[in-house]
């Protein structure tokens, strides 16, 4: 593997790279998280690291920040070998990191958060609060963060908290900072301000490793991009030289150009069949505005979008989990009261929730109980739940969905991920819904189960119902008759069967490719447009 010119821009006269990782491998049990991976960040550079889920980005971050030890490979900061594993202070003086999860403590003041565990010089030396607030004020002023150091951190906005985290991370003296999906929780204007801040810092000579799922942000902010795929380093190139198409191809693999959506034998839904699910001008505060979507009888529609796009919330809103500010949802001609799960159930909506562990399963209870949770009213007279009827019902579901379980009484926690997910799907189907909403239905399941589950959902649609798959996985979307793509709360593209991977990925990442055709007209790169620099 030869390095590209940019990756090794450290000829004579150039300072050593702020961070350089070579030949990094890391495995967790049987899974290989990183295979001979590398990355080089030059001083003052803004370097993007992109890749799909499971590409090894997070593992690289934890290795670069000293939270995990690589199995092989070497790590150098500014030409010097990395500090000893476990020497937190030494690591922090070389590399700063703003993690995906907030490490701000809400009950403490901003000042104390900034200097947590170093409020005073020594352990027995009393903290001088006035001085601490002053130091905090200076630190915040240095990075141009307009936050009152005496305010309680919980009263800050997400954006302010992020700025505080950045200031704290840099206050240890590092000139290199890793930002792990910093824009995921921000709105468009917040992202704009964050980028302004980052550019300011870059002018001060701080180098970045910027991790994001939104490729447009990479184009806006970064000068160099490194792509990881399947635990490997794929390429490193200047952003300016790498077109959208090439970048998406690098992320999705060789298949991007050749692999078109698999053709299905199922007949496409007739355009004249009635609409079973209609979303009209749906507005969910902070998620989406004036969103319209319809699914016809016999149709399977994919609602695609990246993490912050709001597609999951829209799916959940159909099932009555979110109250809409405006707009309506109609199922089979019946208006569903938004924010009411019973109303959605009565109208005939079945939901496969996003996270089966949190929203889906009662882990220590049996397969039978879990599968029949939505239909307890059918299991006996006068509100009773008859064990015999539950068992019969559950056996039918187990057969129907080919759930591999020792028996109906086995606790679901003993099942494999794929079979657990089948139980969740079984439950959604138990009510015989008119509209099935499946959110990331193949999340964390093996290939075999994945195929089966998608086939079963397809079957629901073919049986004269309507189905909506909410997902960012291309495999899930491939079975759909039609894919609607959301970005930052609005529909930006729509694809009929026969789309190519990179078209959908580009639309999800907020990059309008020419291939997206007419759909791109409605796309506006909200908030991530280039700032005049």
């Amino acid at each position, binding site marked *: 593997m030869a390095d590209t010119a940019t990756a090794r821009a450290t000829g004579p006269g150039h300072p050593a790279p702020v961070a350089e990782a070579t030949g990094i491998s890391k495995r967790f049990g049987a899974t290989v998280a990183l295979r001979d991976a590398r990355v080089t960040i030059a001083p003052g550079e803004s370097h993007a690291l992109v890749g799909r889920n499971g590409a090894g980005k997070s593992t690289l971050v934890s290795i670069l920040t000293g939270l995990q030890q690589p199995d092989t490979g070497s790590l150098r900061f500014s030409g010097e070998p990395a500090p000893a594993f476990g020497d*937190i*202070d030494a690591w922090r*003086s070389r590399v700063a990191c703003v*993690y995906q*999860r*907030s*490490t*701000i*403590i*809400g*009950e*403490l003041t901003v000042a*104390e958060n900034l200097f*947590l*565990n*170093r*409020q*005073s010089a020594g*352990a*027995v*030396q*009393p*903290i001088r*609060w*006035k001085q601490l*607030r*002053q*130091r905090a*004020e*200076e*630190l915040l002023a*240095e990075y141009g963060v307009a936050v*009152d*150091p*005496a305010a*309680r951190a919980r009263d800050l906005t997400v954006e302010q908290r992020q700025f505080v985290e950045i200031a704290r991370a840099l*206050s*240890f*003296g590092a000139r290199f900072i890793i930002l792990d999906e910093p824009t995921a929780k921000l709105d468009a204007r917040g992202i704009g301000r964050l980028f302004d801040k980052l550019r300011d810092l870059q002018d001060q000579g701080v180098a970045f490793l910027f991790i994001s799922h939104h490729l447009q942000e990479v184009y806006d902010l970064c000068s160099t991009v490194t792509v990881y795929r399947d635990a490997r380093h794929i390429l490193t190139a200047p952003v300016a030289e790498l077109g959208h198409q090439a970048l998406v191809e690098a992320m999705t693999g060789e298949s991007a150009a050749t692999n078109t959506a698999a053709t299905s034998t199922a007949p496409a839904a007739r355009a004249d069949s009635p609409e079973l699910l209609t979303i009209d001008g749906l507005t969910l505060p902070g998620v989406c505005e004036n969103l319209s979507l319809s699914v016809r009888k016999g149709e399977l529609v994919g609602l695609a979008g990246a993490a912050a796009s709001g597609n999951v919330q829209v799916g959940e809103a159909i099932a009555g989990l979110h109250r809409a500010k405006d707009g309506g949802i109609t199922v089979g001609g019946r208006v569903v009261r938004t924010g009411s799960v019973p109303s959605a159930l009565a109208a005939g909506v079945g939901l496969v929730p996003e996270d089966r562990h949190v929203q889906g399963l009662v882990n220590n209870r049996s397969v039978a109980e879990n599968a029949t949770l939505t239909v307890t009213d059918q299991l006996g007279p006068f509100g009773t739940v008859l064990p015999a009827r539950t068992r019969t019902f559950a056996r039918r579901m187990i057969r129907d969905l080919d759930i591999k379980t020792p028996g109906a009484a086995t606790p679901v926690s003993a099942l494999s991920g794929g079979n657990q997910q089948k139980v969740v799907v079984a439950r959604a189907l138990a009510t015989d819904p008119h509209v099935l909403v499946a959110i990331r239905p193949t999340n964390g399941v093996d290939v075999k189960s994945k195929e089966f589950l998608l086939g079963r959902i397809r079957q629901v649609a073919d049986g004269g119902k309507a189905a909506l798959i909410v997902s960012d996985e291309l495999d899930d979307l491939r079975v759909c008759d039609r894919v609607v793509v959301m970005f930052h709360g609005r529909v930006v593209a729509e694809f009929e069967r026969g789309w190519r991977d990179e078209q959908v990925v580009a639309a999800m990442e907020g990059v309008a490719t020419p291939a997206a055709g007419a759909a791109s007209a409605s796309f506006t790169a909200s908030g991530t447009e280039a700032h005049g620099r």
Partner: protein
Amino acid sequence: MSATTDLTEPAASKAEPAAAETGRRGSRIDLGHFRDLSLIPAILVLMLIGFIVSPAFLTADNLIGVLQQSTELSLLVLATALILICGRMDLSLESTIGVAPVIAVWLVLPTSGARFTGLGLFPEWMAFPLCLLVGVVIGAVNGFLILKLRLNGFIVTLGMLTMLRGLQVALSEGQSIVELPSSFTYLGKASWLGMPAAIWVCAVLFAIGGSALAWLRHGRALYAIGGNAEAARTAGIRVDRTVWIVLILGSLLAAFAGILYSGHYGSISATQGSGWIFQVFAATVIGGVSLNGGKGSIFGALTGVLTLQLVVNVMTLAGVPPLWNQFLNGAIIIVALIISRFASGEKQE
């Protein structure tokens, strides 16, 4: 590291113009402190009521009596406040207050010649340090079970509560122990400068605890751990070790409370401390310490104890039949919670 210190140097000169601003901030901080003082008005109202219902209330004897009765409870409250702030719970404190003195006395008392026969392993003056040592051991065992074996703290300490109570009954054969070494009872009985020594000691312990939590890094670490243990860990705080120390400290305080209590009444009763934990939690929580951790102050917890004790005292003076005490105690706890909920404007969850 050095970057921050460098930044501080030149800024010292800039501090003067910012003084006005800091002054404004200063007043806001004070307001933050008032949250801990939300029970002070309640205490004042109680004292006013006490003054109205009985002339005996506002006498030095009565007030010192209230304080003296608060001492043992307040030490458990101090322990519970520390433990709750770092997000844990220890129910076994109420048994430690009884079992620690019993074990200590059992180890030192002679094998024959008295109603209660001990082992006579140590000289009598050792009773005091042995009692504290028992507290340390109990705390360490709790910490081991909760932090090393990762057992549920609530159930572990509930089990410990029952087990230690049983141990006390077994060792003392269910009877009160009255033959106590004089060194053991000294602190509970003695009077310094016209006030019971126990009050002085408690005041000092509260001052130390409150100061440590306000001005020491390790004290502040408790808030960080209780607020977000993961964030505390990334900030370099040794979370498990700190929590373990706090649990040990808590049991140590409970054992010490046991010494004061035994000294005060001149005997170790078989039910010493039994049922206290509810009052302890109530006092701590109405004093503003959050059951979810990361919130509250030692001073607030102290006002919680005083409020509860004053209520009991005022009711006694007002001639409320003692049979109604329990009912009113519970009612007061709920009323106090409602008041502090709306005084602070925050949900208690």
